[in-house]
């Protein structure tokens, strides 16, 4: 072995070891646990009868999954399209407003710095049927008493939880703004000399130049929707009924309420596989990692 290769391996060894311990072993336990009767907490020794894909069938046929799958899909689409588009739009507009850029960046970062339970509680109180400011604003416009339980009404709970995710677009906007600021001014100056309009500059320079970052925030959007349920837990506990369940929350419930770790592992594996496929797809679409055109 060449000296250089040997040293490369030596330096990589700690990372590889950590990767094996923290990611590969749990991954093996996750997948193997999904194939067995597994209702007692523990490692391999706690797994009972081999069930093959039965846990996957049970997970898919769970009545809560009927709600959790479409909910997760809709939130995923919202996060990776609407929110990313919103973030891109804001970033492009702010490219021209250099003076307010720093201020806006700070404002957008604030909701993401507030600890999640505090933010969720604030939003919940804003939308409280009697005490919340949202209903009062509606009353100002309609001039009639208005008292809607936004998070507790089956018609509006999903929409209400969806709104709680919007601040994430702020972080996406900050990331895209950072990438935009690294585009050389000369490109815009040349375009201006050639008579390009502002819209043409954005379409032909800005967007292609930040393609990598758009892909990256889209991947972040996918991963956030495939593993996050904190806001749901604080605002609705998945209710009313099961109307605001998502897949990660369903897996959480299967672990801590149902205590059926085999089915929960099957759910976790499904989320992992779907998440990986989506990340792969996003990378292909945005050609993430390739040099700027």
């Amino acid at each position, binding site marked *: 072995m060449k000296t250089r290769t040997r040293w490369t391996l030596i330096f990589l060894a700690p990372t590889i070891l950590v990767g094996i311990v923290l990611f590969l072993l749990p991954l093996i336990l996750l997948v193997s646990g999904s194939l067995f009767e597994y209702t007692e907490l523990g490692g391999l020794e706690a797994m009972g009868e081999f069930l093959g894909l039965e846990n996957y069938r049970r997970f898919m046929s769970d009545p809560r999954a009927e709600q959790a799958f479409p909910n997760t899909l809709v939130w995923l689409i919202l996060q990776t399209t609407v929110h990313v588009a919103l973030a891109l739009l804001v970033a492009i507009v702010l490219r021209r407003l250099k003076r307010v850029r720093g201020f806006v960046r700070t404002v957008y970062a604030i909701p993401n710095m507030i600890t999640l339970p505090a933010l969720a509680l604030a939003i919940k109180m804003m939308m409280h049927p009697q005490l919340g400011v949202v209903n009062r604003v509606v009353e100002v416009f309609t001039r009639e008493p208005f008292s809607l339980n936004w998070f507790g009404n089956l018609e509006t709970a999903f929409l209400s939880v969806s709104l709680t995710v919007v601040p994430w677009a702020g972080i996406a906007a900050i990331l895209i703004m950072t990438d935009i600021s690294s585009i050389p001014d000369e490109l815009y100056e040349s375009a201006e000399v050639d008579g390009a309009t502002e819209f043409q500059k954005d379409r032909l320079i800005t967007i292609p130049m930040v393609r990598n970052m758009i892909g990256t925030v889209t991947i972040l959007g996918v991963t956030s929707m495939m593993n996050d349920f904190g806001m749901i837990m604080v605002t609705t*506990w998945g209710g*009313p009924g099961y109307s605001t369940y998502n897949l990660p929350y369903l897996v959480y419930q299967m672990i801590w309420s149902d205590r059926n770790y085999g089915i929960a592992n099957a759910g976790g594996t499904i989320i992992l596989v779907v998440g990986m496929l989506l990340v792969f797809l996003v990378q292909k679409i945005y050609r993430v990692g390739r040099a700027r055109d």
Partner: protein
Amino acid sequence: MKSLRFVGLIFVLAVALPIAAAATGSQEAGGEEITELTFANFIIGDSPGGQWYEMKYQLFEEMYGDRYELVVEEVPGDMEYNEKLTLQISTGNMPDLYISENDTMGRSAYEEGLAIDMTPYADQIENFDRYYPQENIEQVKEAFGEWVIWDVFAPRVSGYYYNQELFSQVGVDEPPRTFDEFFELCEKLDEAGITPVGMMTGENGWTMQYWYQALVAAHSDEGFAMVNESNVIDQFTSEPFRYASEQVKRILTNYANQDAIGAGYDMVAAQMFGERVAMIANGPWMASDYGNPDRVGDASFRDKIGYAPFPGTPPVAVGASDSKGHGSMVAPNGEDKQLGAMLFWGLDLQPQVMESAAEKLGWYVSAYEYPQEVLDANPLVGQLNTLINEWGAETLPWFYDVWTNAVIADGITRNMDLYAAGRITLDEYVQTVQEFADAVGEE
């Protein structure tokens, strides 16, 4: 260079010494070895329960600080505590002292050999023979075969709190004794623009579950028998349960706070403290909140509040907890630690601890004679006990022992959301709850 070496030495010692001390798990103090006791607790913070535990920590330090050091791990939230303990039971790595929140947790810990029989330590605990309720020990022995759960305050009888001033506004001076009277009162309050009942289906549907149990009991002898036994898993399509479900829906849709569907306990309690609802069901631990200015603004607020047993015919049903599955436990972590843990639980029999529990939590030890000022400090619980005697009210097991499993409780609250909203019929609702119970029964 020398100073650099010195600083380096200090740094190394500063890092190494605490690690070494932590690794040994015990310290030397005045030649005596101090044993470290670990305690995971969810009753924390500035709540009455948290304050009561703080007092016990200090008392333990004063009485046994030369032998033991108590290290408390504060776990915010009983659901989080439940999850933590479940995980620890599965790994067998228990804190020296812990609290079993329900029958399932206590039983799991016992079956895994993670709870000691407390009998050999009884004679080392001050006041044990005078005050410890022997019937509680018998109950635990009946359930487990050994005395593995410490609880001197059981049973904690629960009822519902009501705002007498709001009742008076609609011409009602006494709490209703039957559900007919109760619904009549609700109608009057509603017509007067007062929300009658504080309910919640979020979290674990706590305040709703009390009414549910009382309504099942009020239906008939069959219903009373159903909620008077533990671990019910096969009666959710029965007439009493169907009747109670309809009435709970009636309350939720007509007489409850607007955020009842999906609300958590804090939101409902705040509405009771803010006089936005006239009634809320809860245990005696809420009683001291009504005199706590931090909660209600003015301590005199408590004078407006009453505490009554639930309506019902035959005799009024009252939800209560007993000491079968919940209480304090000790892990088998060695003789010295076990003794220390028992000495800590034994503090419950110290007069100042019993009196503080009565004042702050409404928990009483039946054999202890409380000074009048202590009884006066928490008159609500006394009022409940008086009404129980006057009305000849029966005491039912706690609802978490009746539909004991969290899965069933979850099935009830979540599907009640759908039933109350008209998304599913009564037949579908009770059938779904029964399916949840069947799944639990198969385990």
